């Protein structure tokens, strides 16, 4: 029996397994972002936004849409991808993955692929919900899709690393809660960093999330806090860092094997 170089049956099996897991909570996964986004629009878009000036010629309600999508993409991507692998570690069912003839990268492809699929569906849902509240405009749909996808991949990879690293449930929510959400709020999800005093503006540029949100908003409205090229470069850098992290985990067996 010859052994194929790519175990497509395994990748497909894990992908379907993960998707089935998402589907079990489909109602909750669809309703949560829709309700959350609607709330943001009611509060920020209508209530507060009506008293705000438009930013760079974009109404405040429309201005926050890219940031909102990014926020969900970060947190949901992280939690979905980390949960999938963490729960297998936690329950011990990971024995089967470890004993199966699959390469590390096939495992990542399947787990991250499923989480990315869910993130993209989520992004589309939020976009559709937002379209109900504000007039949307997408100047560069190709770039929009590309940035959305690359960011989803990056954060799902990050989530995978988190799931491997976490030793307990609290650690699993630590990073999203303590780092990613604050950085997103401070990263210009709800304002343009041009609105900050110069000193704060400089500090903010050390926040990696700024580049993601800025680039994504540019694909909608053609305006950005930082140069688009810089944003794209940063997105690729984060992606590569996460890929390297995953590679390192598998090379050393870190927290997966004794």
């Amino acid at each position, binding site marked *: 029996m010859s052994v194929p170089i790519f175990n497509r049956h395994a990748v*497909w099996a894990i992908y*379907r397994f993960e998707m089935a897991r998402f589907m079990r909570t489909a109602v909750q996964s669809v309703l949560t972002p829709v309700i959350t986004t609607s709330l943001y629009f009611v509060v920020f878009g209508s209530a507060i936004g009506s008293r705000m000036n438009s930013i760079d010629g974009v109404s405040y309600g429309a201005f926050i849409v890219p940031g909102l999508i990014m926020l969900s993409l970060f947190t949901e991507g992280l939690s979905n991808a980390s949960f999938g692998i963490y729960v297998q570690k936690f329950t011990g069912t990971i024995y089967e*993955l470890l004993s*199966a003839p699959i390469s590390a990268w096939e495992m990542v492809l399947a787990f991250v692929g499923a989480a990315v699929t869910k993130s993209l569906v989520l992004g589309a849902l939020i976009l559709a919900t937002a379209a109900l509240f504000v007039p949307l405009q997408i100047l560069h749909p190709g770039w929009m899709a590309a940035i959305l996808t690359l960011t989803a991949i990056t954060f799902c990879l990050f989530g995978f690393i988190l799931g491997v690293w976490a030793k307990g449930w609290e650690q699993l929510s630590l990073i999203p809660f303590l780092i990613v959400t604050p950085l997103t709020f401070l990263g210009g999800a709800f304002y343009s960093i041009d609105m900050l005093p110069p000193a704060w503006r400089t500090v903010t540029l050390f926040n990696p999330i700024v580049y993601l949100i800025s680039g994504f908003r540019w694909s909608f409205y053609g305006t950005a806090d930082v140069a688009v090229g810089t944003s794209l470069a940063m997105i690729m850098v984060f992606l590569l860092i996460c890929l390297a992290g995953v590679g390192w985990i598998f090379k050393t067996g870190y927290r997966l094997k004794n």
Partner: protein
Amino acid sequence: MPPIISISQLTKTYASGLIALKAVDLDINRGEIFALLGPNGAGKTTLINIVCGIVNATTGKVLADGHDVVREYRAARSKIGLVPQELTTDAFETVWATVNLSRGLFGCAPNPDHLEKVLHDLSLWDKRHDKIMTLSGGMKRRVMIAKALSHEPEILFLDEPTAGVDVELRRDMWALVRGLREKGVTIILTTHYIEEAEDMADRIGVIHKGELILVEDKSVLMKKLGKKLLTLQLQVPLAAIPPELAEWPLAIKAHGHELEYTFDAKADHTGIASLLRRLADLGIAFTDLHTQQSSLEDIFVSLVSDKPEMRL
């Protein structure tokens, strides 16, 4: 024929510094049932987990059907099925979904007919649409076995398959194992029930504190190490062993109605003939006699009796 599994100089030191395996060498023959015995913490699971790719070896080499389990892990692992010691299942999945997942993971194209057969063999077919969490412990154990058999492995590891399993399931399981062996599947199992090893295994290995202290054909082992017991039913009860019989290790049993003589079955000179002659000389008559081969358990206990921490 080359061995189907070849383990050489395998050592494992866990991160805690604990040495779980010390230079283990072991060959498993194609198509045999090999039983690995040893007390808790001996290193049985560690050994199995290294072969299956769940634990990394510290040093040493393992070949499965000629493939290095680290460098050629795809070829090696696709031949191996594992039923781990712990019951770990995806609670929310159905039985059918989980066996399909297992088959896919091992690189096999879907084959509902095979899976149906496996589920029938394990009396799981009626439960195929049930969520695993709704099954009883014994049923979950069956699911784990079904998962391991889903990709038609040539080598099957059963790590304490009968722990906490009722008589019926145990009987089913052994029937299944025998059936697999007839099809040429090699089976390596660990157990704490020595009578199981005695019943099932072709060969037996004993591991103790990370060292493989014995590997032997079961029959040879029983012959080589087996003590035999000669029991004589006495016509007239004896109160004490007469001093004329002091040179034989004898014991009085059943309130003096029985005389027991333990002898080494492998010895050239068992001493039975001279004992019987002496008894006749002394006029001690007996109505019946029989000999009895000691069980594997006796062998096992005697084997490690110089290691007092051994518990079974």
